[in-house]
């Protein structure tokens, strides 16, 4: 079998097996359908609620993407500040650690109170969640530039700004990319937690409402769409990063 066929088929096969197990358990175990809906009823809910699910997905995706974008910019800027200014390192690092020490779940009600029921509070939540992995990975990458690269650049009379843009930044890109991958995987968490606490739309809001009404099939449908959205987003970011970092091959694939 061709490798790309295998890699495309594997998730489909996993999904089919899971569906089969789920269908068998929900049919034969006697668990009531409001606790565990059948795959069929979830599929029907997916189809019947498709308009509502689509608009909710749009909301959650926008919050996630905005949070990811702003959080990445903020994380990258603070990484640069930390690496280049000892002053900023002394003042910013404690702030960063505090922002990670307080669970975002505990902050969520406060953020909704401050930033409202709309998108802003969810975007802020996503920013807080992804900010740290980006800063940590990127600042680490910026610090670990090969000393030989720097020596060579200095003998070529490169200015400090040129060393940053032509040596340190490109050399830090693989580290930055792994930070961004982590951030992409966890950014939807921030958005959905925000929606749980208080929102007027979004997949988290749909799930919360469906749960309250014991519409388990709708809740499963929303969960399915959320998972699909998060995975698609991750795959997209991963593909783009791989293309941009063509020069940094994954050495484990060659071993």
């Amino acid at each position: 079998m061709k490798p790309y066929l295998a890699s495309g088929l594997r998730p489909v096969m996993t999904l089919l097996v899971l569906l089969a197990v789920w269908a068998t358990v929900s049919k034969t175990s006697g668990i009531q359908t409001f606790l565990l809906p059948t795959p069929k009823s979830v599929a029907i809910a997916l189809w019947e609620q498709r308009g509502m699910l689509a608009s909710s997905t749009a909301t959650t995706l926008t919050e996630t993407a905005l949070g990811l974008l702003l959080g990445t910019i903020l994380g990258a800027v603070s990484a640069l500040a930390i690496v280049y200014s000892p002053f900023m390192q002394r003042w910013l690092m404690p702030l960063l650690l505090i922002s990670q020490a307080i669970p975002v779940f505990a902050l969520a009600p406060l953020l909704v109170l401050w930033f409202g029921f709309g998108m802003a509070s969810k975007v802020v939540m996503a920013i807080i969640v992804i900010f740290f992995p980006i800063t940590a990975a990127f600042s680490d990458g910026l610090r670990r530039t090969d000393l030989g690269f720097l020596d060579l650049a200095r003998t070529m009379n490169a200015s400090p700004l040129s060393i940053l843009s032509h040596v340190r930044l490109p050399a830090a890109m693989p580290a930055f990319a792994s930070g961004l991958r982590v951030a992409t995987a966890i950014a939807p968490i921030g958005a959905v937690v925000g929606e749980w606490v208080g929102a007027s739309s979004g997949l988290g809001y749909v799930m919360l409402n469906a749960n309250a009404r014991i519409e388990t099939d709708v809740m499963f449908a929303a969960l399915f769409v959320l998972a699909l959205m998060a995975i698609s987003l991750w795959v997209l970011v991963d593909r783009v990063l791989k293309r941009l970092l063509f020069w940094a091959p994954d050495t484990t694939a060659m071993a």
Partner: protein
Amino acid sequence: MTAAVPFSARATKSSRPQKAPPNLATTSTATVSVDQTPPGLRIEDLALRYGDRTIFEHLNLTLNGGEFVVLLGASGVGKTSLLKIVAGLSTPAEGRVVATDGLPLSHRIAYMGQQDLLYPWLNTVQNVMLGSRLRGEKGDHERALHLLGRVGLGDRAKALPSELSGGMRQRAAIARTLYEDRPIVLMDEPFSALDSFTRARVQDLAAELLQGRTALLITHDPLEACRLGHHLVVLSGHPAKLGPPITIRGQTPRAPDDEELLHTQGRLMRQLTELEPK
């Protein structure tokens, strides 16, 4: 204590009778423009200390313009530190390094490190033009391609460093050094990572292409030193001192079975092993 190394007197008489003067050498290789004799390099009373530990002190060495001088020493004796000081990458505790023509050294030194130091995100020709990129100048694409042709990589200009073999990478690094077109070239064991056959070929290429420039190569390999150097100096001891200079006659690169080379190599091995603490 002083290990002065006055090459000036002997150099022209003994070491370079068969060798064309630098300006002629450049016209024959026809690569780059070293118009007149390049400046020499003078290391004056150099000292390096880490805390209380003295790595070396009172080092004096003069390289005449256009000479290929090899500095030999065991690992950890301070060779790389010395070269970094000459390259302006670190500051000595005492002493200074000057050009023999009195002009500043900055912008006149090219440096080759222990690794090829090709930037992995740039392709081969972009790596050759790295200096232009870093200084914000427009790269001379044609000259870079010409130099890649000279080192036998004309058809690999678009390849990434990761797609090149070790020998090819080191040749690309030579092309990058030549692209800088600087009269003084410093090399820090640039061929030590290569297998011995590839090493010999890359040494030949370096000797040919660096003719007419003032070169200082450091190495721990006596054979490499004897193949490439007009003069050899040994750095050894704690704190390290420079031994008396050894001049090898004949044109470089010398064949590995050259009699002069074999003789000097044996002498060097003896000197190096005797000087190191057992």
